[in-house]
């Protein structure tokens, strides 16, 4: 039901200028944004306007009528909500994968070695909120490891978690491998039996302001050039 448009992200500008065919509006899960920023140079034809946020928030906005050409989510459930509401113009495609790691301050001063250490009372743990894909993935990892934790905060997006770790406010968290790299955090890999592979999905949105531009972007991301870019930035394709 496209009724009253709601929220805070910078979509208003997009709504006004959607008629200009030179721009493509992409809603992207925060952990994937770096790929799109890097795409701009190789991609060239259209100007990419990247709207970053938790996947869930972006989905809600599309459902409420925000104008977007393409959406990239960090897991299937988020994309599924759009499919169920008939908001995708073509079936979603799997773009790539990301691994999860435990991230700590560079140098690992608290000597954290495993998931079990995250439950230590002296460790300030930050996780992504359950409403975002990373939050769901983190819960899966902790479940599989049989560890119960008491995080001090549940952040609204993957980058928010990484930010808290980078600024030193929190001691440890679970983030995407790519984010750990970008933010300069020390990553402790998870044993394969509990590790969860994050899946990124991309789809064009129905009623998009610039359908050709959206399709062109998706084609680029699935092309060999696009795959090379993803690999370079740490995603598995």
């Amino acid at each position, binding site marked *: 039901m496209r009724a009253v448009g709601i929220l805070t992200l910078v979509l208003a500008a997009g709504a006004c200028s959607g008629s200009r065919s030179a721009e493509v509006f992409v809603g992207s899960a925060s952990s994937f944004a770096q790929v799109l920023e890097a795409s701009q140079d190789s991609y060239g034809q259209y100007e990419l306007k990247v709207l970053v946020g938790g996947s869930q928030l972006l989905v809600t906005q599309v459902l409420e009528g925000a104008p977007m050409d393409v959406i990239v989510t960090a897991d299937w459930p988020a994309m599924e909500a759009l499919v169920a509401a008939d908001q995708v113009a073509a079936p979603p495609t799997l773009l790539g994968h990301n691994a999860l790691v435990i991230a700590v301050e560079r140098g690992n001063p608290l000597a954290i070695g495993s998931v079990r250490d995250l439950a230590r009372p002296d460790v300030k743990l930050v996780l992504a*909120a359950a409403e975002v894909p990373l939050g769901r993935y983190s819960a899966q990892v902790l479940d599989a490891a049989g560890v119960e934790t008491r995080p001090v905060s549940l952040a*609204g997006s993957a980058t928010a978690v990484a930010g808290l770790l980078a600024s030193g406010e929190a001691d440890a968290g679970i983030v995407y491998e790519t984010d750990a790299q970008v933010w300069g955090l020390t990553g402790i890999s998870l044993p394969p039996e509990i590790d969860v592979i994050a899946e990124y999905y991309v789809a064009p949105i129905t009623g998009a302001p610039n359908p050709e531009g959206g399709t062109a972007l998706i084609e680029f991301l699935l092309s060999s050039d696009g795959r090379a870019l993803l690999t370079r930035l740490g995603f598995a394709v």
Partner: protein
Amino acid sequence: MKRFIPNRVGLLATVGIGLLMVPFIGLLIRTPWTRFAGDLSESGTAVRLSVVVSVSAALVAVALGVPLGWALARGRFRGKGLVRAIVLLPIVLPPVVAGTALLASLGRRGFVGSIIDDVFGVTFPFTTPGAIIAASFVALPFVTLVAEAGFRAVDESHEEIAATLGAGSWRRFRRIALPKAAPALAAGAVLGWARALGEFGATVTFAGNLDGRTQTLPLAIFFELQSDPEAAFSLSLILVAVSVVVLVVARRAWVR
């Protein structure tokens, strides 16, 4: 004699009130009334936390803002303009910037926070006191400015006479200025409280998000919007209703 507001002004005024009312009407329409009661009881924690945080923040803002307002209204000291500019800052800044500034100073690595951590082993981020600090920070300017205006409006001659009767500045403040400015101060307190209740940016940045400890109602609404938008509408309506009730009650008390 009936007075007609000229057409153009009336038209603009109507647009203005319409702009303000349309979102609330939308909220009323979209709220899922069938599950409202359920949403209400589930949001209990967030509501309670919001009340605790906003009332505490309002008390802090009043305790500090009223004397500050008096100093600005009556005090004779240099740099008053600078002080007033600093007081205005949290109003002008985006709340997220306020939250970031609080992190930089009172966070675990902040120049004040690190000292407090070393000496007392206490940090503010991710705690309820942290949420109170964030809310107080954004509420304080409102209370201060309304208090200053309130004291200014009070005729200084009564305080002068009090001085000739032997009252020092504390006694003049407490027994003369305060009672006379009381209605304005009450309005300032309500304004500060309302601001604290609605605070989001500074709270989520500085205090974080954990239900029961730092997830106040605005934060709960934001996160709920991402998983269960209908619940978000219910919670938003609750927040609007609580605010309306308090503002109406406060205004009645003030006008009287």
